[in-house]
């Protein structure tokens, strides 16, 4: 059995089901091995390694499994870098495999050689290189081959346990092609990770007692929950606790779906573009139940003034998040699911805080500052486009991936997720081009489900090549393209903070008046022609410009069988509101 065969077998034995892999010189033996095991592991050919990396995230974010991607050495490996960094920022478990040049030429600047382990060290949770101590010594090579099942087991364990993250395995070609007898291989070896004890920390009864006391005494408590709750598969426990305690719930962008978005107890998301009422509520709260969150700057704005009146119960599995940005009064390093289970068990009717006045206040804010948008004219406003999409799909188990920018925030604001793992957003790194390939991963891992990529025209173009993957691999992703011909979020900042000067934010030809901001504000012919592009890739596609045509056009896409692109022409003058400018406070919130 060759090294490549051993690796693929080990991936399967550790639960790997979907591999997004782009072949090249240093990974061809691995592809030969993947070919043999196509019955157990579906290999999908993305059209760019970055797309493959995001698709792997699509698998991990939408299921409880671990997505995988593979690239060859050199440019293949460096093309994965952004997807690894993205997974690190959002704590998404993926296992990436890169081919590497043979050990005999490592360090000689060989063709397609890059030190990918060195390049990616800061953006992976951990990395491995499968090497022989002495590549000229058959015993040493044999030892390297025998270590493969252990390395793969460790890679999967590290990716998923504790605070999840991406793990890279760099695999030189000489070990891929070397071989040993299959009978000599131990497929379930003991792991050798003396420095890694992710399951050690459990919530202790004293912390539960203290938390209950703080909850009981609070007058204005708020649940501030994030991606940690999703990663811990603790949405159910969280919802149960929220219902029992009647404490309002606000989510981070990563946390959407942890609590049903259309439940009246949800204040939806908080932070820079969160709802006004969630930001007012957290500002006035006297107790923050901060579960699986990291007090990110997009949530807190000016740190010193964020939630100034609130005591903080901070539960996170990563000890380095506790006290990092905000001092916690009750710090708990634990899996948030273990904590919630213990909290739910201990919680009695007497612990229920009296929140009647608090709810009255929150509902006043909600009535005074609702999420709203212009419904008066014939434009297809992006908010309306998402809102209508929500109405048409709310009773269907729908997965939504997004790119980065205005459309991402509007999708977050106006789509209400009822379940965890239905919303995929590059939140920490903010990578344009994330939506389409991520949706591709979701479609592969969740056959039969409706998977929609809400995208912007800037973001979509960054990984447009993946339209080919949708067609060729029969992945029926629907693309709801909110096309405003601009880099809308940057335009919004130009309008708000830079006197509206257009600096390379118009996406059409440079001799068009709009390129300098001198257009008449309407959108005539659009560029590029996304409908023709999509059709060229083999997708069905349509463009819609008028509001009255939108619901039917949308319905046609949603009920179509294969992949489909709906090019929705939207105004570029619209701003994502409310907005708390970076580093500012809730008092600086822009509402209009």
């Amino acid at each position: 059995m060759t090294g490549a065969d051993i690796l693929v077998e080990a991936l399967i034995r550790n639960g790997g089901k979907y591999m997004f892999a782009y072949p090249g010189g240093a990974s061809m033996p691995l592809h030969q091995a993947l070919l043999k095991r196509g019955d157990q592991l579906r290999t999908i050919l993305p059209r760019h390694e970055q797309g493959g990396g995001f698709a792997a995230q699509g698998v991990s974010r939408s299921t409880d499994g671990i997505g995988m991607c593979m690239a060859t050495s050199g440019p293949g490996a460096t093309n994965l870098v952004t997807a690894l960094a993205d997974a690190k920022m959002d704590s998404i478990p993926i296992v990436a495999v890169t081919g590497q040049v043979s050990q005999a030429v490592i360090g000689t600047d060989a063709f397609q050689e890059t030190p990918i382990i060195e390049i990616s060290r800061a953006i992976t949770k951990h990395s491995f290189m499968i090497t022989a101590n002495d590549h000229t010594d058959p015993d040493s090579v044999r030892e390297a081959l025998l270590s493969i099942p252990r390395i793969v087991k460790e890679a999967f364990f590290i990716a998923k346990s504790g605070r999840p993250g991406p793990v890279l395995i760099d695999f030189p070609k000489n070990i891929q092609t070397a071989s040993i007898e299959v009978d000599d291989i131990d497929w379930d070896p003991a792991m050798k990770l003396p420095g890694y004890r992710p399951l050690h920390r459990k919530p202790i009864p004293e912390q539960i007692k203290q938390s209950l006391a703080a909850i009981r005494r609070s007058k204005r408590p708020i649940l501030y929950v994030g991606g940690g709750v999703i990663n811990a598969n603790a949405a159910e426990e969280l919802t149960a606790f929220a219902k029992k305690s009647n404490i309002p719930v606000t989510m981070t962008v990563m946390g959407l779906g942890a609590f049903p978005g259309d439940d009246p107890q949800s204040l939806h998301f908080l932070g820079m573009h969160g709802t006004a009422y969630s930001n007012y509520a957290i500002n006035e709260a006297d107790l923050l139940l901060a579960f699986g969150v990291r007090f990110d700057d997009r949530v807190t704005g000016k740190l010193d003034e964020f939630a100034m009146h609130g005591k903080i119960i901070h539960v996170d599995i990563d000890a380095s998040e506790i006290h990092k940005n905000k001092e916690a009064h009750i710090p708990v390093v634990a899996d948030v699911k273990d904590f919630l289970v213990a909290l739910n068990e201990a919680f009695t009717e007497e612990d229920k805080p009296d929140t009647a006045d608090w709810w009255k206040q929150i509902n006043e804010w909600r009535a005074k500052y609702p999420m709203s948008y212009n419904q008066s004219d014939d434009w297809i406003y992006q908010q309306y486009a998402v809102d209508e999409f929500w109405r048409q799909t709310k009773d269907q188990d729908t997965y939504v991936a997004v790119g980065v920018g205005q459309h991402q925030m509007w999708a977050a604001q106006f789509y209400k997720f009822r379940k965890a793992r239905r919303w995929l957003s590059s939140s920490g790194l903010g990578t344009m081009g994330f939506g389409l390939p991520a949706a591709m991963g979701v479609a592969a891992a969740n056959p039969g489900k409706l998977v929609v990529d809400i995208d912007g025209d800037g973001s979509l173009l960054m990984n447009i090549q993946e339209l080919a993957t949708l067609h060729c691999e029969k992945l029926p992703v629907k693309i709801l393209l909110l096309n405003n011909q601009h880099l809308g979020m940057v335009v919004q900042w130009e309008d708000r903070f830079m006197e509206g000067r257009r600096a390379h934010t118009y996406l059409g030809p440079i001799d068009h008046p709009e390129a300098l901001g001198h257009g008449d504000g309407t959108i005539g012919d659009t560029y590029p022609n996304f409908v023709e592009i999509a059709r060229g890739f083999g997708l069905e596609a349509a463009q819609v410009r008028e509001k009255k045509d939108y619901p039917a056009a949308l319905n046609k896409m949603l009920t179509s069988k294969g992949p489909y692109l709906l090019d929705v022409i939207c105004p570029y003058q619209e701003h994502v509101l409310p907005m708390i400018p970076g580093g500012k406070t809730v008092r600086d919130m822009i509402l209009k």
Partner: protein
Amino acid sequence: MKHVISAVVVNQPGVLAQISGMLASRAYNIDSLAVGETENPEFSRITFVVSGTDRTLDQVRKQLEKLIPVVRVVDFANREFVERDLMLMKVSACAVKRAEVKELVEIFRGNIVDVASNHVMIEISGKEQKLEAFIDLMRPFGILEMVRTGRIALLRSNEENVDIAERAAHEDPTAAA
């Protein structure tokens, strides 16, 4: 505030690069870093001197602990420990001055390890303050070159004597506490 932090790490290629890279990317100020094998060749001990606020130092420790090859991190602040720094120094000393230099070296319990016609090489070890004092004394003679290992340190008490590394090596990473 300066702290001495000691980390036991798995002795594998790239671990030093990983640790120094993490410290640099998070903009922590490292005054010195010394690394060497422990009593168990599977593990190395890295001693850092880090300056920063208590909050920064708490973060340094936690971020180190997060790295997979890092087995254990101990901040020596407020604990009894022995620290040493080793220095080699070439001091300009013609025949006339040599006796004076030799006397100072003896007072500081150093050694002259090489003699040339116009300079001597001195080996001296001790706590940082001692080395600093010695450097100040040698300056007027003319320091030609010097090199230091950076601080290394061990706790005095018995509590750390258990072979942490050995114990850790036999624990199952999937086990709960």
